[in-house]
Structure formats: C-alpha cells, structure tokens
C-alpha cells in the first residue's frame, strides 16, 4: 500500500467462539507478534435476536480468554475484541479499514457466522488480502 513500510503488522480476524475461528485467531496472532496488532471481530447479523447476539459476544469473549490461557504465542500479542452488529463480511471489512490492517483472517468452516458464505462475500468486497485458515492449522 505505502512505499515506506511500517514493519508492524496489523490483522483483523473473525471470531465466533468456534474451533475453526480459534485456528484463525491463533494464526493471525502469530503473524502480528511481536510488535503488531490484532483486532478480533465478533459479528452477529443485525437481524439476530438481541439475546442471541449477546450470548454470542459473551461466548467469543470467554473463548478468547481461554485461548489466551492456553496459547503461549498469544501472551504478548496486542489484541482487541470488537463486537459488531453487522453482517460478518461487512464488519470485518470495516474493522480492517479502520485499523488500516494488512489483511483479514478467517477460519474455514461450514456453518456459523464466519462460514464459506461469509468468505465468498468477503472476497467480493474486501479491499485487502483475505486469509482463510483451515481447522487443523
């Protein structure tokens, strides 16, 4: 993007509490450390019932905390959780633009808010690299 390269890497990752999403967050965190920044986006469709959206956000928060306890690679990562009331693809793109991110990272799974459908939408609208991380990574 810019010719004078800031060495710090900033990434935006989608997270919904699932194992597939955890793989994406782990991978992204490893690429942003040591000095970079990771913005984790938990998005629920705006049409989703309030309670369900809240429950999802809570699950994401708890899931992230659990990730932090178990993954030593994450300990010194600069991570921020963003809960968004928007379509996941849209939420990820907006977060990436706001953070000036180098890329967007999502897991590969078959259901849930960050599903293959989201990946497809994401690739239609994203203006920066999108990395899709398979579950076993």
């Amino acid at each position, binding site marked *: 993007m810019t010719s004078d390269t800031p060495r710090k890497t900033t990434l935006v990752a989608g997270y919904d509490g699932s194992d597939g999403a955890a793989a994406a967050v782990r991978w992204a965190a490893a690429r942003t450390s040591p000095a970079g920044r990771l913005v984790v986006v938990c998005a629920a469709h705006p049409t989703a019932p309030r309670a369900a959206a809240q429950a999802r956000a809570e699950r994401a928060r708890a899931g992230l905390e659990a990730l932090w306890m178990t993954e030593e690679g994450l300990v010194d990562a600069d991570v921020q959780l963003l809960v968004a009331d928007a379509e996941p693809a849209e939420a990820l793109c907006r977060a990436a633009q706001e953070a000036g991110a*180098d*890329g967007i*990272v999502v897991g590969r799974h078959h259901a849930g808010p960050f599903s293959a459908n989201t990946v*497809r939408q994401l*690739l239609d609208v*994203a203006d920066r*690299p*999108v*990395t899709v991380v*398979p579950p076993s990574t």
Partner: protein
Amino acid sequence: MTDTTNNVPTVVVGWDGSAAARAALAAAARLAPGGHVIAVHAHEDIAPHVTARWQELLALDGAERSAELLREIPDLAIAGLERVHVEAASVAGAPAEALLTAARTHHADAIAVGSRGIGATSAAHGSVSAELLRTADRPVLVIPPTAIKDN
C-alpha cells in the same frame, strides 16, 4: 500433521505475472519477512491426443514461457521483496495442485494467490483460488479483485 520443524517462514505464491499475482507476492513477502517465498508458475499438461513430437514442442514452449515469467520477478518493484529469499519454480500440471504440492514440499506456512473474483458471479469458473480455499491443508491468502489497483 503439523511437524513444523523449520522455523523459517515460507510462503508459496501462485505466479502468472498479473497484477493480482504481484499483489499476492507483496502479501507473501509481508507474511514471511526474512523467510522464503516460493513463486510457482504452473503450465498445464498437454492434451494427450497430440502427437509425441508436438507434445515435446509444446512442453518445451510451456516450460520456456513459465521460466520467462518467473525470471522477471527479481526486477519487480515490490515493497518488501528485498527482505525475503525468492525462489522460482516452474511446474507442469494444474495450478491448484501444483501450488499444494509445492507448499507441502517446502513446508509452507501459507499459499498466496490472486483471485479473478470467486464470488457468486464467477463461481462457475472454478478458479484456482476457489479450489485452494476448498481443499488446501494450510492457510490460503487470496487477493480479492477489489484489492488490486489498476496500474
């Protein structure tokens, strides 16, 4: 599955000389600072019905074109390229398969490719990126069409 014994970051890039491939190369260099970037150009297998002599000539032609494309990489003005060790590989075969094989061989951390739009409009194309996203055993970085600036 992950016996990542090498800790040099390595990324395999699909190379065809396009703007999308250049963006993928830049992204790969960013992902693997101080590491290796393997640029792979795949030239398709030759239809079996042509004569042996033709096959030979076409294969030569394909390999030559492939090598030509890869030769231009070091001269490209791509930010971050100077921070990685670039290796070029010309492979016969279908692109997605060639990239997957190269990624396995080099224990790559990821595969980076451009995209000609793999959304609803072009799903029927069965593009390389779409195939990789379905089948790859490691992270796949895709440059979306909207990420490519015209140049």
